[in-house]
């Protein structure tokens, strides 16, 4: 038996060229894409409701993500003020201090090291304290030379401050080491925790979006059961029947993403004024602003992708069970 005989009748027909079939395939997909949009347009209320539910579900983690990004940028600015002050012994020469500066700067956990000589320290104190006359009465400079060490505090660094402090204190040139970065580390710890929370929260809400879209598609399939039977009766495959439902899922996801984008921007605009006022009280020009381009693109991609997945999970299984009688 030849291979053609093993196939059903239609397969034996003269098929169009590969290029023509590709063009037909794309034209068919475009047709289904637009007709599925038209179908949603014929049910404006239910489409709007579904888009709102999906939009709110996407807006919550997006809002948290955007807020957290802003706080992270604030934390990065504060990080620059995080430091360890090494008060050097009187016996440490300037060359010794500079050598120590150079050595510590080479450590992997150190971002930079600044040397302040005893004279510079006194001058800064004189200018900052307003006690110039009193200082002039001193017969010797009471202030030591200082090395100001700025550790690396980005999120990828798991810096053990106690270990670093012990390491620095163990140096013979150092009389005292003062840590001024624990609060920044706590902030980073909190940001890390919040990031994880946003991730978990986002995953849970993405799951909710999958279920919402899945359920919407399931109901649409149920409502169009008769139509599906007719299509299968005249030769429609499961893939052909499934296609408009998958595109509907994509449209739902896209509309949901747009709703989320709008909601988050409105919320950010509403909160921006009070946040700016609060930040001004702390001498900061911090502002929330609007959603960035990267988050906008993420939303407009994640929405349709979740829609497609939600529709796929439901449509394939449901449609296979519907057969014409």
């Amino acid at each position, binding site marked *: 038996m030849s291979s053609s005989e093993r196939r059903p009748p239609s397969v034996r027909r003269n098929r169009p060229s590969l290029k023509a079939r590709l063009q037909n395939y794309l034209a068919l997909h475009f047709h289904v894409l637009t007709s599925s949009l038209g179908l949603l347009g014929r049910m404006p209320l239910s489409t709007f409701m579904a888009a709102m539910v999906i939009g709110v579900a996407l807006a919550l983690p997006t809002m948290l993500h955007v807020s957290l990004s802003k706080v992270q940028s604030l934390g990065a600015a504060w990080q620059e003020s995080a430091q360890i002050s090494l008060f050097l012994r009187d016996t440490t020469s300037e060359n010794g201090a500079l050598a120590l500066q150079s050595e510590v700067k080479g450590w992997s956990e150190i971002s930079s090291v600044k040397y302040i000589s005893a004279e510079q320290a006194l001058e800064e104190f004189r200018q900052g304290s307003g006690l110039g006359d009193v200082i002039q009465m001193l017969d010797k400079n009471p202030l030591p030379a200082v090395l100001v060490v700025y550790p690396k505090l980005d999120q990828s660094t798991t810096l053990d401050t106690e270990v670093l402090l012990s390491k620095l204190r163990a140096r013979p040139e150092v009389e005292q080491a003062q840590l001024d970065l624990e609060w920044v580390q706590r902030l980073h710890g909190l940001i890390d925790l919040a990031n994880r929370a946003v991730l978990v929260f986002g995953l849970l809400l993405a799951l909710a979006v999958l279920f919402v879209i899945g359920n919407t598609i399931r109901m649409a399939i149920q409502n169009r059961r008769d139509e599906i039977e007719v299509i299968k009766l005249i*030769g429609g495959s499961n893939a052909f029947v499934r296609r408009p439902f998958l595109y509907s899922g994509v449209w739902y996801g896209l509309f949901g993403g747009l709703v989320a984008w709008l909601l988050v921007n409105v919320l950010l605009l509403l909160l921006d004024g009070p946040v700016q006022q609060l930040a001004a009280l702390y001498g900061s020009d911090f502002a929330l602003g609007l959603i960035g381009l990267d988050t906008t693109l993420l939303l407009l991609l994640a929405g349709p992708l979740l829609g497609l997945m939600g529709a796929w999970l439901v449509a394939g299984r449901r449609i296979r069970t519907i057969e014409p009688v």
Partner: protein
Amino acid sequence: MIQFTNVSKRYTNGFVALNNVSFQVERGEMVFLTGHSGAGKSTVLKMIPLLERQSEGQIVIDNKALSDIKRRYIPALRRDIGIIFQDSKLLNDRNVFDNVALPLLISGDHHPREIGRRVRAALDKVGLLEREQESTVALSGGERQRVGIARAVVNRPKVLIADEPTGNLDPALSQEIMTLFEQFQQVGVTVLIASHDLGLIGRMNKRILALDHGQLVEFQAEESL
């Protein structure tokens, strides 16, 4: 083109719808299938596009044994068969054009321009070209049936099967529909029509397959008259 050999259909509840039925319909032939309600006419028609599978025997369509066709190839088989129903089974949320275009969209082998050309040719054939943009809900019973016929022939099937296609129509419209089927037969399409309207069948002067309690009695139109 259509060959039933010792075909039986027994349902799980024990009811025997067909009992050892054998017949053959040649390529380009038009044949009527008749019998009282429950005689097995619809069962025969349902077996051709594999809406039902036989319990025993063999069915061959266009040299292909249906028992060899796997589940995933059933849609391809159905695309080669034009099916017409008593209730026309149109999609009421789509217009006339979209209903007729459906088999071409399903086949996926046609460019939109070609689809438009073929749909209009089919609608012209059934006399509904001017109404392509109308909703099917607005059509009369006869017009709906004609849209159903246009949909069945638009993909140029080799076989047309029709289950009581004139069941809801008056005699004049019924004759009109039958004339359409005859025109398709004349261009080489094999047509098998289930009907219990013996008067209409007699006037068509075609071969008749009569079913009685699931068993076949074959005779010519002249004999029935």
